[in-house]
């Protein structure tokens, strides 16, 4: 009876999946352990070098999990009591942080394995602040037809980068860090920022098969920012000012005429039966094309710019 139960259990899918998962984790653990051992063989004087590999593996996993979930590493002090219930000891934030470069290096090796000999697209963008951060992503379709996007570089620079500097950075990432052949980079994607445009044009000289892509959503957002709403913008700024104590910055209304505020109408289709529907329709058109409401012409002109 017991034997039969075991036979049934070992044949079920859950058991097979769990078994595979167990061996995968074991394999991964062994890899990490060997990385840790190799590192401390070369650097025997480094802190934590005298500890057992299992303890170090646990600390590695804790740091890795926190980083993956975007939890600040100093939270480890608060979680220490809970995490140490498993039996392995943790250490201070400073010593835990020493695992970060090692984890980053291993992640990079995994990414390198995934993107080796694959054709793909490089996506890049940066912040517009003085101290700039630039990120580069690699996107590819793997042999199983799954789209994969991987962060391949995140660099911070002291000053704002020019187009040429960005191009040089991309060359370094693609040719040196990722060991890509120029013809393997078959596309790039960017937003409408001029710096990215310069880098793209230069990149076209390097990569002969480069297909250019511009982020459509960014273009649409840009269109929205160019729609002029003079009174509404002023009203919103005044609304904000009413909560800050900066009366000197308060914009003064230009007109002094008053009118009673009326509630905004709900959308009504033009086919709504009214006593004189045709006249009503034409009146609306007349108003739309008058100079007092010039904004209505904007949507027709905006898409044509693209």
């Amino acid at each position: 009876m017991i034997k039969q139960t075991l036979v049934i259990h070992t044949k079920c899918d859950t058991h097979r999946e769990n078994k595979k998962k167990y061996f995968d984790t074991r394999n991964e653990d062994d890899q990490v352990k060997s990385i840790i051992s190799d590192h401390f063989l070369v650097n025997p004087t480094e802190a934590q070098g005298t500890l057992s590999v299992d303890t170090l593996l646990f600390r590695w996993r804790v740091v890795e999990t926190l980083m993956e979930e975007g939890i600040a590493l100093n939270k480890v002090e608060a979680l220490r009591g809970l995490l140490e219930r498993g039996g392995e000891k943790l250490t201070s934030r400073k010593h835990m942080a020493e695992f970060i470069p090692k984890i980053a290096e291993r992640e990079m090796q995994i990414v390198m394995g995934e993107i080796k000999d694959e054709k793909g697209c490089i996506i890049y963008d940066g912040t517009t602040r003085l101290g700039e951060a630039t990120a580069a992503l690699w996107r590819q379709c793997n042999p199983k037809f799954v789209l994969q996007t991987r962060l391949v570089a995140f660099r911070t620079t002291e000053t704002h980068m020019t187009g040429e500097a960005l191009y040089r950075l991309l060359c370094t990432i693609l040719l040196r860090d990722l060991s890509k052949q120029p013809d393997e980079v078959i596309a790039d994607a960017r937003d409408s920022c001029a710096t990215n445009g310069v880098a793209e044009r230069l990149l076209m000289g390097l990569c002969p098969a480069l297909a250019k892509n511009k982020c459509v959503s960014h273009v649409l957002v840009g269109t929205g920012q160019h729609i002029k709403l003079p009174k509404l913008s002023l009203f919103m700024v005044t609304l904000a000012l009413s909560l800050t104590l900066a009366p000197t910055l308060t914009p003064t209304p230009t007109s002094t005429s008053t009118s009673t505020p009326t509630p905004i109408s709900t959308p009504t289709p033009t086919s709504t039966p009214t006593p004189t529907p045709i006249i009503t329709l034409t009146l609306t058109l007349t108003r739309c094309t008058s100079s007092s409401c010039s904004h209505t012409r904007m949507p027709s002109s905006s898409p044509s710019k693209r």
Partner: protein
Amino acid sequence: MHLIQLLTHSHAFKLAFKEVMGEAMKTYSKIRWWSRWDLMEQLARGFARLDKLIAVLEERGIGDASTEHLREMFDAHSRQLRHELAMVMDLKCFYIATYKLEGDGLEGLCVTEIIEEIRSKGRTLKDQPSNMPNLAAVLRSDIVIDVGTKIYEYYGAPYNAWYEGKVLELTMEP
């Protein structure tokens, strides 16, 4: 717009807003797409209660002199504000398209279709008031149709042209 960011962090204002408008004010972020638009749309939906909101701000002394300016501005330009807010609601197609095309999948395949939809709206903007229903309704409510009101109307075949004219007679259709 940094100021709006400040605004959304004021506790007293948040309380007043929720009390009057019946919903919490959306937070403003300068990096989130269409964040300003979100706020504007909220103002548009609660336009009828905007007057009361300013009254509450005045009553509770939130904002001092600036609230007075807000009141002056609202009284002087509420009509144009209403038009602009109606337009904000009508131009939501840009907002929707942005978020439709955002993502890591195969959105690229629908780009042409979605952009063409917006362009066709732009091309036919003058022909149909239904392209801007909110703005059309708001503008229409401002006009009193009477004998002598000027009109601009399209006549189909065989004329196929726009004609200017004026209302000569008002009749009730059955």
